[in-house]
């Protein structure tokens, strides 16, 4: 089975057909996706802005991450679930769209950036946790993270304009 067959099978599956045709298929999934993605971005941005040294400077970084990361992960799970449902509605349309591929690539890069941060400067967090301006290395990780996530949002929104037979934008 090649990619085209698999995509066609996903689209013609019961769930794919439902997501494409039912009045309560695509619309609630997209609304859930927006509520979730804004929370993923909002919570990550708050931490990144602290790492860069522009916001919430009175809080140690560890206080912020402890408070915000549960929100990030719950919202991310909802975004992945709702995004997967939207994907089923027109799997091949998404799969071949440049914007969709860029979005997926950037999410992977955000993950790599996060892992590198945890293996790198995060190990010595006790040295800079409460510093008003964290070390340059930390600030660069924060800046890269927020730029990646802003790009994810842009490519995500442009998918809606790129797909043929696109959902209403």
């Amino acid at each position, binding site marked *: 089975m090649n990619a085209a067959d698999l995509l066609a099978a996903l689209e013609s599956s019961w769930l794919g057909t439902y997501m494409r045709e039912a009045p309560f298929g695509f619309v609630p999934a997209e609304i859930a996706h927006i*509520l979730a993605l*804004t929370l993923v*971005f*909002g919570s990550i941005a*708050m931490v990144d802005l602290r790492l860069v040294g522009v916001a919430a400077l009175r809080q140690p970084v560890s206080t912020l991450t402890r408070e915000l990361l549960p929100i990030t992960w719950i919202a991310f799970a909802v975004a992945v679930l709702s995004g997967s449902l939207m994907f089923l509605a027109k799997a091949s349309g998404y799969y071949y769209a440049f914007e969709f591929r860029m979005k997926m690539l950037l999410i992977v890069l955000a993950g790599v950036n996060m892992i590198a941060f945890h293996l790198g400067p995060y190990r010595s967090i006790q040295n800079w946790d409460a510093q008003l301006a964290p070390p340059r290395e930390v600030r660069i990780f924060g800046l890269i993270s927020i730029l990646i996530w802003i790009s994810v949002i842009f490519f995500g929104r442009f998918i809606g304009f790129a797909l043929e037979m696109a959902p209403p934008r």
Partner: protein
Amino acid sequence: MFRSLADWMASTPISLAFQNALWVIPTSQSIHLVAIGIVFGAAVILNLRLLGIGRSTRRVSELFDTLLPWLWGGLTVLLLTGIVQTFAEPARQLKTPHFLWKMVMVLVVAIVTFLFQKSVRRHKAQWDAAAANPAAGKLFALVTLSLWVGIIVCGRMIAYVWERYE
């Protein structure tokens, strides 16, 4: 209700320029989404703390001082990109009831938040000393969270219903 306004706006040079530049709408919508992330993120973090849900141990007045400037700044960006989108597609926005409901909810949530922010500043000591979460804070949190979700839902619904009202 705003049909004649929509028709007039559609004929203005700025609207015609936006209609002809295909990148304007998706770019403005993307910035709009980034700003929703900041505003909704700030509102959820603040309101979870007021409801006593989650791990936040920050003082209420401190949370307001940290988050509210971002909320107002984000709201300003939302207003500006919203104006761009309304000039780019006047009929889509101004003829759709969901747009009107959204604007009413934005106005209400902005006024309620402004008044609550003033009250927290005035009674800083009581808010920070409160051992349990005060009922007034919980009420504010439930009302504004519902409004923010309603605003986002109506905003997206415009895309699905506007052609019915054109």
